[in-house]
């Protein structure tokens, strides 16, 4: 498939996408409000860490959503370099921006948990440092996008950076096995069964589901806004 076969951006389609994204995001935010109630009111307090352990129900789903977002940027960027479909580039830009929001949640809730548990806000160990690098790499990705004005060049250059970012994701996940690190090891995404009591696992799974739904909603909304901006640009140029 080539770019010529792709329908031109239309304002009607953009507005429908924006409406859909807004509805899904609002639903997911309501779901996350429900997760707050579930985590704070109906999930047991961990004996050694106290209530600060409940930060885990936001930190882990945020990390999952950020890594999912950055992985998808890489995958669709690879596809873009092959197919030159502008929809893939638009999706990659949306996913990178939304991924940064989830990464911001991950990078703020992590230190807030670390202070009472480790006794320090931050330590330069492999997991934390690689995650910070990943965050900065995607900040650079968005900066590059705003610096290049030609649409095709912008898509090509940023696709290469997006693929580089995706390559960092497995190192972030496996860093707790590859290096000596303070960060806890995975308790769900690991070869053996999850090592959590059911009430805690249930809250984590519901939260992960809601964060993933929010990712879908925000990417749809951001995609629609990008589509509307392009439709307007083409309309003004015509």
């Amino acid at each position, binding site marked *: 498939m080539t770019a010529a076969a792709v329908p031109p951006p239309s304002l009607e389609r*953009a*507005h429908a996408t*924006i409406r859909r*994204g*807004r509805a899904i*995001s*609002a639903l997911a*935010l309501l779901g*996350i409000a429900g997760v*707050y109630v579930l985590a*704070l009111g109906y999930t047991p*307090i*961990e*004996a*050694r*860490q*106290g*209530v*600060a352990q*409940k*930060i885990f129900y*936001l*930190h882990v789903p*945020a990390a999952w959503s950020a890594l999912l977002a950055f992985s998808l940027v890489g995958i669709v960027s690879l596809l873009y370099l092959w197919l030159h479909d502008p929809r893939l580039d638009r999706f990659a830009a949306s996913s990178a921006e939304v991924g940064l*929001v989830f990464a*911001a*949640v991950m990078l*703020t*809730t992590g230190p*807030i*948990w670390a*202070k*009472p548990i480790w006794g320090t806000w931050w330590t330069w160990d492999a997991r934390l440092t690689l995650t910070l690098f990943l965050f900065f790499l995607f900040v650079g990705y968005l900066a590059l996008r705003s610096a290049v004005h030609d649409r095709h060049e912008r898509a090509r250059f940023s696709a290469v950076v997006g693929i580089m970012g995706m390559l960092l994701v497995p190192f972030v996940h496996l860093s707790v096995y590859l290096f000596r690190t303070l960060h806890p090891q995975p308790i769900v995404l690991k070869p053996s069964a999850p090592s959590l009591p059911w009430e805690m696992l249930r809250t984590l799974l519901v939260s992960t589901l809601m964060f993933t739904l*929010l990712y879908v909603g*925000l990417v749809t*909304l*951001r995609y*629609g*806004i990008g589509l*509307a*901006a392009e439709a*307007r640009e083409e309309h003004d140029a015509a």
Partner: protein
Amino acid sequence: MPPEPPVNGGYMIAAYVVTGAILLSYFLSLVRKGRSEK
């Protein structure tokens, strides 16, 4: 008798407030952008 869990609820509240603020403010900024594209 098992030891009492540590008292650190302030950190938990801070994390929940910061997460809500980040997610909600980003959502609202996109909603505003979406409206200005009309």
